[in-house]
């Protein structure tokens, strides 16, 4: 394949679908996800449990169970990633592209010294000798800010705190100089002071090494501070994607707006009444042919129930999948007609005070 022009994305995902057959029916975990990631950038994928964000990440890393049915294109630096996976190509996953998981305790081997676990990666992928690999492991631990790295390599995971364990996992991920790091809820299991250190570290590594990063998180605050671009997922689809500033301050999708409105913020007044999203996320088995957010959406009109809205706009720009976007005239009209009726087209009661930025 020819070299990519400088403007070509490092990773490009087109119309990705992932289905899991289960006893209760087929779970449509990912339904047509597309995005681009450029060299040196961080894309945050934000969503709640069941939104498909982790399944998307695992698909990229070829970590899905065999029962999963995948379709769509994933291109990394001009190479077809799904074909690489099918050919069982060595030294791609874990080398070019690596992943850091949520719980460091389950991604480390509990009965193996951490130095050896890092060295194992180097020996397998890069053919280092045992002693070279152990030396490099110490250097890597130093890079990720581990105090006393020479002593730590001889310790077992249970001897380390959660924050230090996660540093070991990050060191392993960096071992082969990846160009893309996928971090799946990397700080969800740790305390806030530790979270800050880990996110600072990931930022620094990305900058120093020119890596690209996909940061998967349920925490909008984390996405806001750390990402260049953000994709919001709901029920297996990207419902809105934009650069971080646009997404947080000039969003178009009612779900993005409702999510941001529902979380308590540190500068809100004490006992500030929260504005929750009514209802709960939809079932992913046999979803109805309508906007998945419509039953919970205060903007919903009858056309929202007539089919799933497409993500409009060009890839790479501000895109959203909504027929009556917030902050537009159509959105305002939808809101005022729902308010006047006291109910949305999907049957959700609307009170005068609820939501609506206009």
């Amino acid at each position, binding site marked *: 394949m020819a070299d990519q022009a400088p403007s070509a994305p490092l990773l490009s995902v087109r119309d990705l679908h992932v289905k899991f057959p289960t006893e209760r029916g087929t779970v449509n975990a990912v339904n047509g996800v597309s995005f681009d990631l450029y060299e040196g950038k961080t894309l945050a994928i934000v969503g709640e449990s069941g939104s498909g964000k982790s399944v998307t990440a695992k698909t990229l890393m070829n970590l899905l169970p065999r029962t999963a049915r995948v379709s769509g294109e994933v291109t990394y630096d001009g190479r077809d990633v799904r074909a690489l996976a099918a050919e069982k190509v060595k030294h791609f996953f874990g080398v070019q592209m690596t992943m850091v998981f949520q719980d460091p305790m389950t991604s480390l081997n509990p009965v193996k010294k951490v130095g050896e676990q890092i060295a194992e990666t180097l020996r397998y992928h890069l053919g280092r000798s045992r002693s070279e690999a152990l030396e490099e492991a110490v250097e890597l631990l130093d890079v990720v800010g581990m105090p006393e790295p020479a002593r730590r390599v001889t310790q077992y995971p249970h001897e380390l705190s959660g924050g230090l364990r996660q540093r070991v996992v990050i060191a392993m991920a960096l071992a082969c100089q990846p160009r893309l790091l996928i971090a799946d809820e990397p700080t969800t299991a740790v305390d806030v*002071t530790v979270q800050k250190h880990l996110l600072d570290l990931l930022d620094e590594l990305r900058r120093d090494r020119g890596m690209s990063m996909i940061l998967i998180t349920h925490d909008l605050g984390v996405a806001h501070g750390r990402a260049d671009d953000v994709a919001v997922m709901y029920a297996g689809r990207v419902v809105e994607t934009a650069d971080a500033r646009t997404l947080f301050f000039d969003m178009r999708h009612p779900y993005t707006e409702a999510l941001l409105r*529902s979380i308590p913020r540190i500068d809100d007044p004490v006992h500030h009444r929260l504005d929750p999203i009514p209802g709960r996320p939809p079932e992913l088995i046999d979803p109805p042919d309508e906007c998945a957010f419509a039953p919970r959406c205060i903007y919903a009109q009858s056309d929202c129930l007539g089919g799933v809205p497409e993500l409009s706009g060009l890839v790479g720009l501000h895109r959203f999948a909504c027929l009556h976007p917030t902050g537009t005239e159509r959105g305002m009209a939808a809101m005022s007609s729902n308010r006047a009726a006291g109910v949305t087209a999907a049957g959700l009661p609307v009170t005068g005070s609820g939501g609506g930025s206009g």
Partner: protein
Amino acid sequence: MAGTGHAQLRDRDDVLLRVKDLVVHFPAGRRRVVHAVSEVTFDVVSGETLGIVGESGCGKSTVARAIIRLVDITAGEVLYEGRDLAGLEGEDLRRVRPQVQMIFQDPISSLNPRRRVRDVIAEGLAVWGDDIGSWSRDRIDELMDAVGVEARYGARRPHEFSGGQCQRIGIARALALDPKVLICDEPVSALDVSIQAQILNLLQDMKRRYGLTVLFISHDLSVVKNVSDRIVVMYLGKVCEIGSTAEIYSHPAHPYTRALLASIPEPAPTVDVSEGDIGDELPSATDPPSGCRFHTRCPRATDVCGEVEPVSEQIGDADHYVACHHPVAVEITAR
């Protein structure tokens, strides 16, 4: 604090719960002990929501569990309506417990998976029926309705509900005995973002409707600020800072409180982001640091901090108490 002292206790008639010099040790083998809670002192007045905030290992959950005697109290007092719960045993303890109920972090595993949710909610009433007065189907229906779970689903079992619904059922169960105090231990941490606000609002509504006094434990500073009238900040088994919510968030004085506020993804405007740069090694609770327990990570620590344990002192005349040798000077307008 990361210290001791009683300055934060209030001399009022409506103090419902007073925890004084509470100590909880857990054996850790080879005659070592985990100092989970060390001389913690605070009080809660009737109708108040007290937030207890801190990171894992700070002892916040152990304090809550000690109050309802789910763990043994090593030393200290837990005065509930003037009675010391620490010394109660057997029938006396059993009689107090309905008045102090608890909801837990994991809403699904805290419900018995084999029982219908109606029976889960009714359990306490079935045990206490004769003492608390007659109860009926209507009472369960009313509770389910109050927490927003349709009564017609009463025959279903917990696994048929979502996490948010299970937390509502847990709240109904806690409220069934008409408690005075509700202890909430990380009640929304396991829930999705869009569901958290529903549960937080529900807790506020239940508090108002049933006249509850609430102890709210969380690691999430934004959530605690939203629900609490007064806040206790804990670190490694000790109290750092206590005060009205407005005081703590507008003038945080303890370096640890400030570090927490600076570490959250969208830091509080009252602190500088660099104040969050404390080491990420929490000292061992079996061998806690001398003096102020926070001194090993504290950017303001001096020699005295490693030698002398700070005692809580009031800041000006505000409802704000800090145990620190070098509290961050805050402008006190009323001084």
